[in-house]
């Protein structure tokens, strides 16, 4: 019985961690290429509403998840066009993307408020997930596995592939990469589109898995937590996964405490917990090690224009 509770808690942790991990992996790649995209929250909302709408329309949540990547990547394309094509300020443009995503998702989602769709449930047969312990391995939504596989893939890409080396080089010194002959803007554009697709997929998790419903501002600031996680992880995919699961635990704590009415504290305090925890973690990571500057890509946030 205790085991069953423990397993169910751990399942919740994985579910809470997965969208953070997906979005943060995308942002990590974007930042490694030297771009700071603060539009994650907006892209997640666009992904969430797309996934829901497509799932309701076609009856296929899987199709919804795929569509979420397309629309969110398209939204990130606006960001890419402005920051890369027109060398606009990345902070301002990222904020604009979040405001835009919040508005357009609310607009597009208005007809879908109050209905439900099929959950993007576990993929393995129930037989495998019957036993509580096996359920811990086989009982998740496919996106949980995809997030973990993507962690490995991003790690391998950055560490061992030539394209990853070029991407890191572009983020480290855009001028140097340009003078050797690498297409800085193209590399960054691809990274931004990847980040958009990942944020969209992360958003689809909220509208297809967590609660198969749509509501305005469904992601509730999780996109910002994902950005903070990238800093917390010092731009390393392994640490990112650990950080996402740590936050998954914090969010689970909030949910469990509220559900059980256990907390002596007000539920509003528990709702603040993930945001306060984010700040606490940023303080720890920034105060603990001065090497954080070391880990950040040297060109992060700086616009690039090929100089004469």
């Amino acid at each position, binding site marked *: 019985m205790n085991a069953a509770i423990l397993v169910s808690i751990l399942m919740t942790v994985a579910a809470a961690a997965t969208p953070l991990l997906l979005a943060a992996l995308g942002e990590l790649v974007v930042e490694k290429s030297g771009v700071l995209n603060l539009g994650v929250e907006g892209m997640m909302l666009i992904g969430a509403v797309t996934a829901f709408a497509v799932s309701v329309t076609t009856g296929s949540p899987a199709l919804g998840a795929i569509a979420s990547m397309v629309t969110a990547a398209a939204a990130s394309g606006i960001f890419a066009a402005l920051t890369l094509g027109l060398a606009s300020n990345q902070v301002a443009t990222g904020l604009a993307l979040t405001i835009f995503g919040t508005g357009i998702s609310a607009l597009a989602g208005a007809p879908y408020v109050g209905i439900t769709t099929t959950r993007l449930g576990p993929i393995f047969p129930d037989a495998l997930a019957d036993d509580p312990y096996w359920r811990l391995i086989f009982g998740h939504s496919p996106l949980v596995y995809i997030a973990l596989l993507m962690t490995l893939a991003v790690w391998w890409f950055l560490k061992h592939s*030539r394209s990853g*080396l*070029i991407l*890191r*080089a572009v983020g*480290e*010194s855009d*001028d*140097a*990469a*340009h*003078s*050797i*002959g*690498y297409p800085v803007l193209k590399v960054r554009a691809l990274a931004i589109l990847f980040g958009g697709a990942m944020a969209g997929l992360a958003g689809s998790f909220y509208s297809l898995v967590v609660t198969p419903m749509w509501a305005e501002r469904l992601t509730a600031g999780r996109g910002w937590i994902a950005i903070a996680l990238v800093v917390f992880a010092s731009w390393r995919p392994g640490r990112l996964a650990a950080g996402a699961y740590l936050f998954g635990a914090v969010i689970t704590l909030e949910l469990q405490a509220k559900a059980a009415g256990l907390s002596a504290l007000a539920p509003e305090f528990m709702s603040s917990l993930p945001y306060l925890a984010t700040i606490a973690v940023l303080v720890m990571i920034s105060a603990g090690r*001065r*090497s954080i*500057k*070391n880990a950040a890509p*040297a060109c992060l946030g700086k616009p690039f224009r090929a100089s*004469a």
Partner: protein
Amino acid sequence: MLPRIELLGITKRFPGVLANDAISFAVQPGEIHALLGENGAGKSTLVKIIYGVLQADSGQITFDGREAQVGSPREARALGIGMVFQHFSLFEAMTVLENIALGMDHPPARRQLEAEVRRVLDSYNLALDPHRDVHTLSVGERQRIEIVRALLQKPKLLIMDEPTSVLTPQEVEELFKTLRQLASEGCSILYISHKLEEIKALCDRATIMRGGRVVATCDPAKETARSMAEMMIGGNLKDIEGRDGRTVGQVRFTVENLSVPGEPPFGTSLNDISFEVSAGEIFGIAGVAGNGQNELLAALSGEQRRGMRGRIVIDGRDITDTGVTGRRRAGLSSVPEERNGHAAVPGMSLAENAILSARTRKALAAKGLLRRSAAREFASSVISAFSVKATGARGMAGSLSGGNLQKYVMGREIMQEPAVLLVAQPTWGVDAGAASFIRQAMVDLAASGSAIVLISQDLDELLALSDRIAVINEGHLSAAMDIATVSIEELGLLMGGVHGKKKPASAAPAEGITHHGA
């Protein structure tokens, strides 16, 4: 024999500037060909066109007898053109091997690449550890990465852009050996520089550029440094006046046991630095870039005081615990190496830039309010006294040419009549006219009784201006030496520091560099 590369009528225009105006010349196989000219003469634009970083508006390039379209650096490398940039195109946080792989279009597998790199290092007798992170390397070692990167592609033409401006005399000699060996194997070298003695020592032929045009071609061995300099600037060289016969007075500036930890990620720590400078004296600090010069200037000016230990005294007043403004009030002025964005704000007017550093000593602000007309007046007086070419005090700092902005910055500090002036690289990247003006202004300031600390990588400049000189290496400052008795070799060895000592006995006289007053 066909020339290795021939340029015909290369023309390139930027908004408001004709950077290259119908440039034509040829380089033969195995020839070391100098491309000589002042900053702004159009050399860098030209080599960027040859290497495919920029495209010419018109003109033709022939490579080994065939017309070549160099659309990108990749196409240049495919033709057999290699390039070593002046500002290295290296990635600090990556290893030597990763950097080399990034410079190749089709790098072999990691292990094979390492073997090839080691072979090149051996055959040219270059010392470099492929697994080190770039930010841990000396400037000379960094340049070797670029050279290895180019050599792995087996180039037929190697372009070297200002390769020696950051090297010690001994490192320059090592580099020349490598280049001569390459040339003897048939590789052509296009050697861009404004250092005339080096060109005399190394190059077979020289093409001289001025104002975007080719103005002369000569055999450097048959010319004197002065004659080439005059072709380069298109006029007569002006000698500095009043350099001798200055009287050195009492001590005005004392630094005792100054230590400052380096800023992460790659800053240099300063270790136990002590020196003093007297009225009327110019104290030179030589050293290879990145050995703590910027950190020293920031610590002395008060811009970076975190973790600082030691003592700084001006005219008997201890200013160790005061910040930038307090030190300015005590009579300390400084001119950092970087003009744009450090010594001046490009997006602000010259008057506002006057407020930036002269508001205390020239009362350009009072009770928290700006005195804008006073600032305009002061800026105008700097503009006229230092013959700065600008539209006036309301003109943007960013619209001035490098030389004019540097004159303005120097003028702004000098006209505050500082007790002590700290200057880093005052003539870096400025034209000869402005450079000689700035040097004269420093000499005049010293003659009026100020103490000057001159930090420079240009040994010629230091030797021409300083009364005493010390060398900074990895954050340590050597003992001060009298300019009359110091030898170039001695300075070079000190500049090389630990790195220099590791090398095989290469303390042979550095024939490329001799002391000349120009």
